[in-house]
Structures are given as C-alpha cells and as structure tokens.
C-alpha cells in the first residue's frame, strides 16, 4: 500500500517513505499531526492510500512464464491461474487502502 499527498503547487502525487495501516498509526509514526514535504506543510488527514503493486499482473506474468514449460496451453492456463492468485492479493491491498482512507487521524 502506497501513501501519498497531492502536491499543493503541481497538483501531482508525492509518495511518502513511510507505511502505516491507518491515519492514527501514521500520526504516531511521524510523531506529529502535521509534517512537511518539499517545503509544503500537510496534515495526516491529507494523506491518501492506494494499492502499491498490481499482483494480478505479476501473477499473470509469473504464471504465464512458468506455464511456458507446458507449451502454449501452459502459458494460457498458467497465466489465468496466476492472475486469479494475484487478484486475491490485489483485492486485499485495495481493502487495506480503503480502510486507511476511511480512518481518522
């Protein structure tokens, strides 16, 4: 799960080099409700979360490559199997991100 704030000047995402399950934990990790990144001050409430890696794609790729040992059908079966395994991980990470975004500082 990636944590980010929207840069006040460029309106782009700036990712934080910390990890926390919710905003209260993040405040504890940072030691303050407010923090500064690139000269801009933000509140813990400004921090948003999103899934960091697409495990569905990683799983599909891994499954396809491993399945290549079984030829073209192996690529298809391995790719589908890998994508299904990865989908479970992706959904888990999306739930964690939603939980963070719904938490209070």
């Amino acid at each position, binding site marked *: 799960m990636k944590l980010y704030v929207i840069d006040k000047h460029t309106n782009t995402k700036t990712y934080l080099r910390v990890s926390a399950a919710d905003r209260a934990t993040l405040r504890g990790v940072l*030691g303050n409700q407010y923090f500064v*990144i690139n000269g801009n*001050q933000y509140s813990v409430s400004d921090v948003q979360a999103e899934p960091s890696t697409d*495990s569905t794609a990683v799983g*599909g790729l*891994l499954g396809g490559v*491993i399945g290549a*040992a079984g030829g*073209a059908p192996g690529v298809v079966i*391995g790719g589908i199997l890998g994508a299904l395994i990865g989908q479970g991980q992706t959904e888990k990470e999306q739930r964690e991100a939603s939980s963070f975004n719904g938490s209070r500082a």
Partner: protein
Amino acid sequence: MNLPYNLHRSRTLVVAFLFVLAAVLVVYRQEAKDVVRGIFEGGSLPYAIWIYVTVSVLSHSYFIAGVASSQFEKITETVFSIGTYGLAGTTSLTLLQGVFLQYFYGVSSFSNFGSLDLASVGLVSVYLLIYCGINTSRMLGDVVFQVKGSDAEPPEAT
C-alpha cells in the same frame, strides 16, 4: 472495479506479452522444449530462487517497519520466511522439472503416475511457484517504492 491507470497499463502489457509468448511457443514448439530442458538441467534456477527470496525478505524486513513487537520476533519471522518461500519455490521447481521431463521426454521421474496425476502435480507446483513469486515480488516492490518516496519532516516550531 476502479483501478489506477498504471494498473490497467501493466495488465494490458502482461496480456500482450503472454500472447506473443504463446505464439512463439506454437511456432517453435520443439526448440522451446529443448530450451526449457536446458534451463531445468542447467541447475542454476534453484540458486536464483534462493538468492531472490533471500534478498526480497531481508530487504523487506530491514527497510519496512512491520508489526513485530521485538527484535527476536523480527529475526525469527525473517528466517522462517526465507526458509518457507525458498523451500516451497525450489521444491515446486524440482517437481515441475520431473513432470516436464516425464511428460515430454519420457524420463521416469514418478513411476506409476498416470497423465492425470502428472497434471495434478504440475498444477500444484505451478500454484506454489506463483504464490511464492507474488509474495516475494510484493516485498521487493514495497522496498523499491520506499526508496523512491519522499521523507516527511516535522514542521518548524513557531
């Protein structure tokens, strides 16, 4: 499901890559089998798995703060993770090698195993390998992301 743009892009790229890979395997079927056999019999894949697992787990436990309450818990968790993912990865690879050699080249790895048994062993091995691969890749991905991120500094006291 509402996914970020980069997730859609990575999935599209993977599907395109697998499509090309499957097409290549259809055209160069025999050559591909020989290449896979060469990779299996080269013997370097288990070492690659152990190195990848060790680097992923160690860097994750060093750079990413976990929920471990003590240093002892952190060390044991790291050692067990390396052992679990390493053994699961290498063992499933060996099983997959046995299935491949028996199915395509008639080398007897599993005596008295029928086609259905071999397919089952192969499927379970692939599942295990993918599971290990996804988890260790996620660990490595988290570490790479943390390195690229920005540091949050405390505000100046007024």
